[in-house]
């Protein structure tokens, strides 16, 4: 069903009245709820100018929010580059003709998809230093954790993408004398990457949100700097959380819009994934809501 309007008739006079009444009732209910929240905040003194004033001062932005945002973006970009590499390698590995490549690659992908990111980050941050007898920085704990998890999710996405390419493509490539690796590199992966571009971008949203886990291991990203450290100085945790949440929402909404635009664009372009192949039975999970 492409539009939801098919669910109800074009409203006649009675339906219009009913919808208007429902709008008003719900609107009033919503307004009451918002007012209640407002009153609660007011009671707790959360609208005091002092708590919000820091956000009008340049030093808040230059010392807390911007450095935090930069670390967040740095971790997200590094994590994305590494997880794309990981994803392509393991997708190709899982499609290999050799069982000794296919099975370990599959096991690794399944394992890292099932383990919570926080468990990985804790292991890298607290456990690995015991093993290598030296510290691991919070940045790399977060980035490696993100790479293993998102790389595995992307590997599944790529595998679905590669499998969705019509077999004629690979057959034609073999027919002109290409080797297996050439077929993969020159024919299958580029087409899969293009078809999977929207999925890759929406995974970037997941990855960007997951960098907030860095807060738990004291990595100075946006949540740590902009909410925790700032409110430690100013005592304005609610105000800071709201401002930082808005920053996340704006960035992620832009990325989501980009993903949707790419999705429409790829659909319009020449290469179309056959409908049946887009949803292979075991590849239903492409993007997962992670923290």
């Amino acid at each position: 069903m492409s539009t939801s309007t098919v669910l109800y008739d074009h409203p006649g006079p009675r339906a219009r009245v009913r919808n208007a009444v429902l709008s008003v009732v719900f609107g009033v209910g919503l307004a009451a709820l918002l007012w209640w929240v407002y009153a609660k905040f007011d009671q707790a003194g959360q609208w005091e100018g002092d708590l919000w004033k820091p956000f009008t001062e340049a030093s808040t932005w230059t010392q807390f929010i911007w450095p935090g945002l930069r670390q967040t973006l740095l971790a997200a970009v590094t994590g994305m580059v590494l997880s794309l590499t990981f994803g392509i390698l393991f997708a190709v590995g899982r499609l290999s003709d050799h069982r000794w490549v296919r099975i370990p690659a599959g096991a690794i992908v399944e394992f890292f998809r099932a383990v919570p990111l926080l468990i990985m980050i804790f292991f890298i941050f607290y456990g690995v230093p015991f093993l290598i007898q030296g510290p691991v920085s919070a940045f790399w704990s977060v980035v490696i954790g993100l790479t293993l998890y998102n790389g595995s999710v992307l590997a599944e996405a790529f595998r679905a993408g590669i499998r969705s390419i019509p077999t004629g493509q690979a057959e034609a490539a073999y027919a002109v004398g290409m080797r297996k690796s050439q077929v993969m590199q020159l024919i299958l992966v580029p087409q899969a990457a293009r078809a999977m571009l929207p999925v890759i971008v929406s995974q970037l949203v997941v990855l960007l949100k997951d960098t907030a886990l860095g807060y738990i291991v004291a990595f100075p990203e946006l949540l740590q700097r902009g909410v925790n450290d700032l409110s430690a100085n100013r005592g304005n945790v609610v105000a800071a959380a709201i401002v930082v949440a808005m920053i996340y929402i704006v960035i992620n909404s832009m990325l989501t819009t980009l993903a949707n635009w790419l999705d429409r664009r790829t659909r319009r372009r020449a290469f179309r994934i056959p409908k049946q192949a887009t949803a292979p039975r075991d590849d239903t999970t492409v993007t997962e809501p992670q923290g």
Partner: protein
Amino acid sequence: MHVFADPTNLDAYLSGFLWILKLTGSSAVLALVLGVLLAAFRVSPVPVLRGFGAAWVNIFRNTPLTLIIFFCYFGLFTTLGLTLSDDLDQNNYWLGVVGLSVYTAAFVCEAVRSGINTVPPGQAEAARAIGLTFFQTLRIVVLPQAGRAVVAPLGSVLIALCKNATIVGTIGLIEASSVMKQLINDNGDAVIPIFLVFAGTFAALLIPTGYFFGWLANRLAVKR
């Protein structure tokens, strides 16, 4: 494996995973109810409801869960004084459930809404043609068919929820990841076994769950 031979450690391990299961269970029920309701809002004829649903999804889907849980504790509890239980652990648990539910409901809503989109328009048109109202169309005709299509996506949402439950450790609930961190700090000589036990437990819980939902989705799929 000497670490888990110690009964205190074994108890910590068990109670850690018990918290994870409890968090997952309560949040799954709440998020499912809330998510289906939000999806109904998003396709309803009333603009205010549609706007509310869309706003909820856009706000909570784009905010990191860590920030939401953080806000539940430091915002709702510490600053605004919202106390859900007198027992400290229970209070943290319910604050975690609130955070996980409002976050997951956004994903449930989107899954259900895309499930509604898989139902052919003819079904709803036929329902309207025989005079069913919006709620009847949704309840009797569209949602039962959409429900079969969303089994697999809801399965992934549930799996993600179970993994996300570890984040509640941030606000002081001693769940599995916090237990693992503690055990690693106390037993530097057994880091790998500890990690493998915790990660393995999650894998043992979640990989079969994934296959189960895949199987169920296939079984329930509407043959068209």
